């Protein structure tokens, strides 16, 4: 009992992170439903790697290990990365990505609260640049692959790299809906023709669109519990919708409808779970709108005109760089001052 205030709200960082992890569960459940349990294996691998790397880095940095391991932030980084990369991949892929995210993107920047970049997205960028092959082997959803692997076959492939004798990698994996769209557009097919392919569902990819719904539900839970504010998801999805809508209206044969963008790739995950990372996003509401709108724009540009199938990760990282500047120029008006630019007053009012 040293100084006021002597009371505090019963709330802590580890509970906040735990709620974010919980909010991912609907999406994960649908993931398992449509794509099989491989994702659970990569989430487990990511969790173990994240905790191990976190403990090791804390030890190297002479920081207390227990309180930081309990904050759940490393787990969240691992889960987000696992959900961003193909689940049916050699075990070391997620391990390398997670270890890099925690060790370099988080701890070399000063640990919890100090990372300039979203660690999970740094891990993703490292993997997609270093191991592009492994990053394209996405599992086909139920009923679409030529052969479906059982759980133990999946485990065998992940840990030993061995497939059943009758299966090839091509037979069990496929390009993502965004990737397929891009490839076939290059072949001069129209959007309408492409969307008739069996891998597409109601709005976007069969199965993956449902996972996106799951993340949307989780995101609404985060909004309802006020863990995130509306600014980032609304500005991100809104910008993506408006830009995609403009292009779609101009040339519907070449540019896919905005809802396709919402429910494809990492858009929902990014809007509610990745861009909203408090540490690497702006602290002002106006700044959040600018930050997320910029990310929405970059995501669309990469998807429509860039070399990578999805753009959420690079959009996040590029906008992360701008955060300090955005925050500086979006300072709100202070009580008793005329405008945000009002000169600081150095003397205090009389009581």
């Amino acid at each position, binding site marked *: *009992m*040293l*100084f*006021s*205030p*002597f*009371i*505090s*709200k019963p*709330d*802590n*960082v580890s*509970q*906040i992170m735990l709620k974010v992890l919980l909010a991912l569960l609907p999406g994960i459940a649908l993931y398992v439903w449509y794509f099989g349990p491989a994702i659970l294996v990569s989430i487990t691998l990511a969790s173990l790697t994240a905790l191990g790397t976190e403990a090791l880095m804390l030890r190297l940095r002479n920081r*207390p290990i227990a*309180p*930081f391991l309990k*904050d759940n*932030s490393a787990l969240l980084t691992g889960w987000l990365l696992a959900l961003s990369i193909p689940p049916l991949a050699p075990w070391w892929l997620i391990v390398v990505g997670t270890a890099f995210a925690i060790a370099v993107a988080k701890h070399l920047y000063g*640990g*919890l*609260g*100090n990372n300039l970049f979203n660690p999970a997205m740094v891990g993703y960028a490292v993997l997609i640049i270093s191991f592009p092959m492994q990053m394209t082997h996405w599992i086909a959803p139920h009923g679409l692959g030529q052969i479906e692997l059982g759980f133990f076959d999946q485990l065998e492939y992940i840990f030993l790299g061995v497939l059943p004798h009758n299966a090839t990698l091509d037979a069990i994996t496929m390009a993502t809906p965004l990737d397929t769209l891009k490839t076939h557009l290059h072949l001069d097919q129209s959007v309408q023709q492409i969307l008739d392919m069996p891998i597409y569902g109601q709005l976007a990819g069969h199965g993956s669109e449902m996972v996106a719904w799951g993340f949307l539900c989780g995101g609404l839970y985060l909004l309802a519990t006020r863990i995130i504010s509306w600014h980032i998801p609304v500005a991100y999805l809104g910008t993506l919708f408006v830009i995609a809508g403009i292009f779609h209206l101009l040339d519907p044969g070449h540019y896919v409808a905005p809802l396709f963008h919402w429910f494809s790739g990492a858009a929902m995950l990014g809007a509610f779970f990745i861009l909203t990372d*408090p*540490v690497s996003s702006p*602290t*002002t509401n106006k700044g959040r709108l600018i930050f997320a709108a910029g990310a929405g724009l970059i995501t669309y540009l990469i998807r429509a005109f860039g070399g990578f199938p999805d753009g959420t990760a690079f959009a996040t990282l590029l906008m992360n760089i701008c955060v300090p500047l955005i*925050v500086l120029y979006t*300072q*709100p*008006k*202070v*009580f*008793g*001052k*005329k405008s945000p630019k*009002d000169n*600081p*007053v*150095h*003397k*205090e*009012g*009389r*009581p």
Partner: protein
Amino acid sequence: MEISRVLIDNEKMRTLYHFHGGIHPPSNKSQSTQVAIARAPLPSRLVVPLHQHAGEAAKPIVQVGDHVLKGQLIGMPDGFVSSAVHAPTSGTITAIDMQLIAHPSGLPNLCATLIPDGKEEWIPHKAIDYRDHSSAELQQLLRMAGVVGLGGAAFPSDIKLRIGKQKITSLILNGAECEPYITCDDMLMRERAAEIVQGAEMLRFMLDASEVLIGIEDNKPEAIAALKQAIADRGMNHEVVAIPTIYPGGSAKQLIRVLTGLEVPSGKLPTDIGVQCFNVATAYSVYRAFAQGEPLLSRIVTIAGNVRQAQNYEALIGTPIDELIALGVALPDTNGYIMGGPMMGIPLPAVHVPVVKATNCVIAASDRLFPPPPPALPCIRCTRCVEVCPADLQPQDLFWFAQSKEFGRAQAFSLFDCIECGACSYVCPSHIPLVQYYRFAKSEIRAREHDKQLADQARERHEYREHRIEREKQEKADKLAAKEKAAQAAKLNSLQQPTPQQQAELADLEAHRAHIRELAQSGVEHPED
């Protein structure tokens, strides 16, 4: 401007405004409002600090061994911002020395110790009709009656009434009492509403204010009803306004915003926007000073927290707090005491320190009521602090600057607009003692500015001294040169213009020589030969 809601009050519509942020901590007020205010028994001794108010300490005007009467002046206001201190009862002054008081610094301060004789013998005093006096005279009376703000800041009231040429539109009485546990104003309003509204009228008279607004949080319906009744009974047109219960709605600037929609400009005073604000208990003291001629000798103190019976007591200034706590009976696991509320109060350095004019509440603390916070984690910039800051600041940035000692940037981010309400610390999920960082940064900046001022003064002094030495040297040299010149001139003059005596000698000499020449020319023998 955001309009939060419209309230129909006395058939008048008053639009209430909203300030950003705020929190809803558990109020814990009902425990101490079950029974009426009790008069605390006369304590065994009274320790009256001479510095209980903002500004300069009062100068002691009694000596050890003096017998004093109740209400007798023992400390004379000393300086522009200062206030008088009186003997709270009759008795003997046994010491005037440094004693521990309730102050964040924990440093002792000059106090007069009085042993009561139990007679409660008053010094002659008389009521005055305030309408017969000028505002300036009334201000002087309040200064000599030791009336200071009883909301916690203890700012001398006469200074706040000295408004010069400024026109005051609204006089605001602050009955918000937004801090948890504290109920002294609530109970005072319930039980002594008539005195409060008359005190308000006296304040209005001195300020020549057009309207009187009494702001009370809507969790005090009894107080609101009592004041409305008292106003109606006297046919006054003061307006009681129920305001939303939100902490820190009782902070003067936030209350002014809620009631008038005006923001006191940063670094300015409420009077600059035509508003002045007093606590309801201050209005009560003004009433006592004028209508009964009694200086400020006692105040209502809430005893709450880890005690068997929480209650409000009317306690004499100088009452040792342990004697007050004993009335409520602290529970065995009590491990400390807080003066003020749990949001902005200070821990008492010792439980025997005296009640002062700023003591609105004493809370017995225990680990059960105030569990020690878990170790702080790094800031994750979640901005829960931003959401609750009533000054629209960026607490997470200010914390960052304070932590890295970037005081210039902290100032540029309006550190000094922070009112230290503690809302940010309350909601911080990393349990960072944010307010403590701001206090540290503010005190460092003040200390540096003070050091800089001293250094500037020292440098100026040094430069002046150098200049003076140089000038003296020059003057000396000039003087010497002048003297030498004068001496030379004198020498020259002495050659050109002989004195009369010399002239006479010269004349003699010339005459003698002329005589010799004559003798030589005549060729005659020397007469002496």
